[in-house]
């Protein structure tokens, strides 16, 4: 087990460095001068040169990357061009809200997905299977930002039950765990739960079907095991793959939250990314993407380790 974990961690190091390289290069594929956003329109050549030196844009690329990486490792991702505040603290504050949203969405999506998937796989080709499969295919095909709009139309505009945007009464202030704040979480969480719901349903349905058609299930039934116990074996066999898929989906929700957060003005990392793009705030853009990608890599690592912990076949492989 420990050698497996160690091997996985060693394998992650080059990935992390490459991810950092991609994030670093992002700024350099941008057309135009990255200083445009900070410089006043009538700035002198001297001022431009001074700032270029201050941001380090005058050095050769590999040196810039080395310096940037060194600072990033020490938690310094530069400061936002728009606000002047450190990028890391801006990102971390926003990520908290994204995590809250993702966890709620995951709870809804995974519960429904597991339930639908198991039932559909077990009662294959029945009407209940067809219903669950239709839900699943709609979930993976729906443009979720549009679904968000439709939910706002129904529950905010027409019924006036839930707030349409924001993360709390009186603007997006501090988050608190009370009904006044939770009301704001419901629509965005339901909206972002549909994709994981669809994918988990489809995965678990296929897994359940595959496992039930294997010989050992026949053997279990032949030796007189009750159907509930057969079902326990099915769940045990489906767990590692289902876990991996759910981990990946959680990662997608954390990293791909920009559309949902834009629709609901949810003050998370996605909304931060949105403002970074449209204010041409390149350090903030770079830093947010780096932090989100690293979260994703870390989550994948944890999922792999968890998978190995519950599935003895992986360690041998």
């Amino acid at each position, binding site marked *: 087990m420990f050698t497996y974990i160690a091997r996985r961690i060693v394998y992650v190091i080059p990935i992390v460095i490459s991810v950092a390289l991609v994030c670093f290069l992002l700024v350099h594929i941008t057309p135009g001068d990255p200083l445009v956003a900070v410089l006043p329109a009538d700035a002198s050549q001297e001022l431009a040169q001074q700032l270029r030196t201050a941001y380090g844009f005058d050095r050769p690329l590999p040196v810039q990357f080395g310096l940037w990486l060194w600072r990033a490792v020490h938690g310094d991702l530069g400061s936002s061009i728009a606000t002047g505040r450190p990028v890391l603290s801006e990102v971390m504050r926003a990520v908290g809200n994204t995590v809250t949203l993702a966890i709620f969405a995951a709870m809804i999506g995974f519960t429904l997905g597991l339930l639908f998937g198991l039932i559909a796989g077990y009662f294959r080709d029945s009407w209940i299977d067809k219903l669950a499969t239709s839900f699943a295919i709609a979930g993976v095909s729906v*443009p979720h930002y549009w679904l968000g709009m439709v939910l706002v*139309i129904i529950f905010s505009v027409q019924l006036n039950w839930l707030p349409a945007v924001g993360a709390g009464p009186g603007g997006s202030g501090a988050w608190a765990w009370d009904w006044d704040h939770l009301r704001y979480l419901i629509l965005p969480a339901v909206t972002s739960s549909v994709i994981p719901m669809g994918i988990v349903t489809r995965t678990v349905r296929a897994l359940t079907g595959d496992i039930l058609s294997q010989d050992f299930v026949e053997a279990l039934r032949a030796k007189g095991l009750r159907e509930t116990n057969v079902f326990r074996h099915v769940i045990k066999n489906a767990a590692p793959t289902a876990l991996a898929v759910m981990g990946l989906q959680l990662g997608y929700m954390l990293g791909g939250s920009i559309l949902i957060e834009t629709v609901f003005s949810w003050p998370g990392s996605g909304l931060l990314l949105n403002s970074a793009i449209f204010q041409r705030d390149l350090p903030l853009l770079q830093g947010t993407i780096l932090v989100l990608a690293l979260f994703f890599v870390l989550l994948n690592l944890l999922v792999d380790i968890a998978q190995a912990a519950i599935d003895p076949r992986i360690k041998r492989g």
Partner: protein
Amino acid sequence: MSTITDLALQAAPVTKARGYWATVGRRIMRDKISIACALILILIFASALFAPWLGLADPYQGSMIRRLRHIGTPGYLLGTDELGRDMLSRLVYGGRLSLIIGILPVILAFVIGTGLGLVAGYVGGKLNTAIMRTIDVFYAFPSVLLAIAISGALGAGIVNSIVSLTVVFVPQITRVAESVTTGVRNMDFVEAARASGAGPLTIMRVHMLGNVLGPIFVYATGLISVSMILAAGLSFLGLGTKPPEPEWGLMLNTLRTAIYVNPWVAALPGVMIFAVSICFNLLSDGMRSAMDIRN
């Protein structure tokens, strides 16, 4: 050449065993859902293609006095948008750009990814490691984040949005192509081709491509659904085309302000995205089961 095969087909006895693709075709034709989806897609594609000849209103012509008419208003079947432009016309014309930016990335990625995966899978060794480890880096980003990152860095624009989505899909198709190719590589007929003196390029092109293309194609068809949603999503964020161009994602964005006045007209462009996306998904599922591919 073709006349000879046609003649041969006509002359063949009825009991002759059907080929693989004929079987697949027959299975798809019997699948009602796949046929329905194909028909809906053909309708949407054809209307987008022949939009100028359908006698629709000018999609750019607005009017301050007839803004946000409801669905079913006489003369405006699907109402009007926030600038008084005919929605039906804008939805039909919008299909042109929306379908291009949604499907072109998958086609490009299909060509590039199949090429990379075929080479990686067939040549193997160090080249395989180099290609596949580079691909792994892109897997370290959630696909939405990667698309936004590239699109956001390059700036708004149709070409940039197509480029960023192509970059997102190339790694996924390469992985599928590589694994399918590796599965075929050691089969006897490839060995036979090699023994008879065929070079690597000939083997890949003549003997392997036909055997790996099917599964990759089905996978790519499924990706179109994701691509449509992401491409419209980029436009929705303002990273795609610019107003007043009709495009479903952008229309959804500009109509957001209208949800308090005329909510159901505002939701219409999303219905189009949803329809195209779900049809491609169901079609991909239908082909998958017709070709008996296990994922």
